[in-house]
């Protein structure tokens, strides 16, 4: 088999495994099992990002999704119940709404340009200018860094502020640092 076919096969298999994992997370009642399955889900999506050549996103997903989130969820579980409260197994209203939304999204994505097509509108709008003028205008050799840190620098600063605030809030709630004594 040519490598392109195998690469496609890897991508499809990874997405299928992700679907199975997501279904299991939705169905399980044990919250510890759900936390562990979320770790597997993050590893799978990190692998998908690598296959799609988004290596920097894959780094973030592996460190945050598979690493820190699992620990934070376990830290939360230690302060709550480990079992989900039993509810009705299947509610037709939300299920129909979700199924309708899936169909709507599938229909909306049917006329979307082919994956990574160079003639797609997203690749023709501002991307050529970033690629051609980026090194001269910003002085940053890596184009991804140039866009994140220079062209949309204020946006990134806002994101970092939000994440920093959220991190402080989580640490204050969970006390992972061990500085505060609980009596």
């Amino acid at each position: 088999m040519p490598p392109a076919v195998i690469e496609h096969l890897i991508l499809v298999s990874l997405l299928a495994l992700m679907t199975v994992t997501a279904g299991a997370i939705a169905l399980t009642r044990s919250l510890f099992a759900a936390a562990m399955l979320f770790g597997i889900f993050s590893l799978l999506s990190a692998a998908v990002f690598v296959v799609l050549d988004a290596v920097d996103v894959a780094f973030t997903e592996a460190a945050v999704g598979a690493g820190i989130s699992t620990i934070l969820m376990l830290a939360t579980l230690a302060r709550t119940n480990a079992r989900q409260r039993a509810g009705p197994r299947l509610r037709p209203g939300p299920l129909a709404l979700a199924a309708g939304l899936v169909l709507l999204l599938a229909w909306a994505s049917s006329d979307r340009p082919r994956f990574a097509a160079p003639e797609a509108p997203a690749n023709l709008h501002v991307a050529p200018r970033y690629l051609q003028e980026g090194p001269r205008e910003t002085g940053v050799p890596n184009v991804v860094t140039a866009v994140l840190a220079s062209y949309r620098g204020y946006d990134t600063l806002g994101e970092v502020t939000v994440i920093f605030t959220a991190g402080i809030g989580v640490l204050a709630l969970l006390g992972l640092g061990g500085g505060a004594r609980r009596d």
Partner: protein
Amino acid sequence: MTGAAALAVLAAMGITLIRALRGPTLYDRVLAVNSFGTLTVLLIALHGFLTERPEFLDIALLYALINFIGTVAVLKFFEYGDLGATGSTED
């Protein structure tokens, strides 16, 4: 050859996922997640050689480190219930 190895790793991922889904104990699931992380490392390394860009091997190495630290952190959490614990059980 690399492609066949990648498909074999994917099959192993499926089997590991079944173990993570069925449990039955917590440690089965922890071990399944750990094995799954190792398989992800292998898959990323094989994908690097498959697309003839083995320099992505660095990422696989980083994943291996994260996987190890993550598993140790989860197990430490089960043992002490607190990540700030120093390991001594005196207090």
